């Protein structure tokens, strides 16, 4: 029973953590139609900036906030160099460009920071809550809370601000939005920066749990993609739902079926969902425009 409860908790916590990474990805996809394979690398950037700042004596919470900014700035550069010139090109080229950027950033990080994993100390690391034999580390609880807050904030931002409405207009139909005076170019820039910066925060928060190293982003990107596809691309509440679903599947598959085939099971579920509901679980099916 305890084992079951622990597996459940593990899954939920993991889900919240995936949602956080997926949040940025889904925003970017919604507006730019870009399947950004370099998303996880921004988590790596956030993580490394937190590492260096904490090493220099900056307090951890401040380091997380700066991680947000650093990821955003690098995101701006990446957007200018690798995605903006391709805005008229097809999605496949954009996707390929993001794959290239991802590999480039990994190799660059390795050259600059060495391939060694680095430890980021958070005031909470090493401490756990014990709820009758079920353990949750405090850093993970923090991640769940912040993940929830950020998802909610993004949701409200999209619903209730002018920027948010422009983002929604741009993601629904960029051409019409432009005609109505929405600055779609600027919106796409800002969404990209916001999206990768959110992932930067995720990286800084994950650092104490997972350590920081150049190749840390790739597996995060993959999981985030599964989350986003399950929840519906471009859908913020879908990112939360998708995250929790993936977290639970992974945890229970690992706990009760096989840890070796864990990833295969996650992707099989994804397959089934894609076939049954190709638009994602939470999105209503839309007819294709001709």
């Amino acid at each position: 029973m305890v084992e079951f409860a622990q597996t459940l908790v593990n899954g939920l916590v993991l889900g919240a953590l995936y949602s956080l990474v997926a949040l940025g990805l889904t925003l970017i996809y919604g507006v730019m139609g870009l399947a950004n394979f370099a998303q996880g690398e921004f988590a790596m950037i956030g993580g490394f900036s937190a590492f260096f700042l904490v090493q220099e004596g900056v307090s951890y919470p401040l380091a997380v906030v700066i991680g947000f900014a650093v990821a955003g700035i690098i995101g701006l550069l990446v957007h200018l160099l690798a995605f903006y010139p391709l805005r008229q090109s097809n999605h496949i080229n954009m996707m390929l460009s993001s794959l290239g950027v991802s590999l480039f950033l990994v190799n660059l990080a390795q050259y600059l920071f060495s391939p060694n994993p680095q430890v980021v100390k958070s005031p909470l690391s090493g401490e756990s809550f014990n709820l009758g034999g079920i353990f949750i580390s405090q850093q993970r609880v923090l991640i769940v809370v912040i993940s929830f807050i950020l998802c909610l904030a993004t949701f409200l931002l999209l619903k209730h601000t002018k920027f948010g409405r422009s983002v929604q207009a741009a993601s629904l139909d960029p051409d019409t939005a432009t005609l109505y005076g929405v600055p779609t170019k600027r919106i796409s820039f800002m969404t990209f920066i916001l999206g990768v910066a959110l992932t930067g925060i995720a990286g800084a928060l994950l650092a104490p749990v997972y350590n920081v190293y150049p190749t840390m982003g790739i597996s995060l990107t993959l999981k985030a993609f599964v989350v986003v596809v399950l929840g519906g691309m471009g859908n913020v509440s879908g990112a939360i739902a998708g995250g929790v679903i993936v977290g639970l599947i992974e945890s229970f598959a690992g706990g009760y079926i096989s840890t070796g085939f864990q990833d295969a099971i996650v992707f099989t579920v994804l397959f089934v969902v894609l076939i049954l509901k190709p638009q994602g679980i939470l999105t209503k099916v839309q007819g294709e425009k001709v």
Partner: protein
Amino acid sequence: MNRNRILFWTCILVGMICILSSLYLQNLYILRVAVFAVIAAMLAVSVNLLVGYTGQVSLGQAGFYGIGAYTVGLLTTQWHWSFWLALLAAFILTSLTGLILGLPTTQLKGHFLGIATLGFGIIVNVIFNNWTSLTGGPNGIRGIAPPELFGISLQYENYFLGFSLFCLMVVVLMVHLVVNSAIGRAWKCIRHDEISAQVSGINVYGYKLMAFSLSGGIAGIAGGLYAGFMTFISPETFDLNQSITIITTAILGGPGTLFGPLVGAGVLTVLSESLRALNELRLIIYRAILVTVIVFLPEGIYPFISKKLRKRGIASQLKLKDRRRELDEQDFSQS
């Protein structure tokens, strides 16, 4: 029409000369690099059928590649089949896999298809890694016997290069014939506009399945060649990175062209080998060049070069072919 024919036979001749001259190569390093380049080219050709001709993304090509390699590896070592029979089995099995993968996924579009195929690649890799009783797990399969042809053992790298070049030529020829048949025209329609293809009575589903199946089969042959050449296979060769490399090769070279994937494989091989002296900076510069090429030559290297050549009027022979493509492009922009 006659000109096209001359061009066709010139290409065949050049191919034959390449195959024959490769037999005289003596430098083992160049030979090995060349064989891997030929395999890379074949993989790029396979993914080009999907990405280039039919407009379908595949991020799981390494799955087919791996299934092909493991089929040959297992059949020759465990059941002592001859290499040729195993290669045929690999082709059939991967074609079938492509068909089965295509059944559900052809209804998906764009990125969803990309993610689904990516999932396929990962599932296949996980199976290679964890079904230890069959695949040997991470230890892989060792001691695959190199093939023999008319009593000549292909364990020598130059013979193998000749043989793999021959396979590549056959595959390219096959693709050429298919693409210029009714099937190819249907694919082109689907790439340009799926819905209008459907409306004009093209069996979109069936033709997409065909593309998946053929693409899988070609990747399977490449896998079989890899297994025969390396005589050792292990799961890490057939991972996501490999899938990415394959699609990158095809798109850099020029998707939707016959020779684009070959050019892509050649350029990437030469680039990657010539940067080796840079040591630590090598991969950084290599990736930077890749991104730059994608950003500045989104249509691919081969179309760019042939356009340049045509502008200078050097390749008057290429004209007809290009004009045909131009017409296609016009169709495309009008639709």
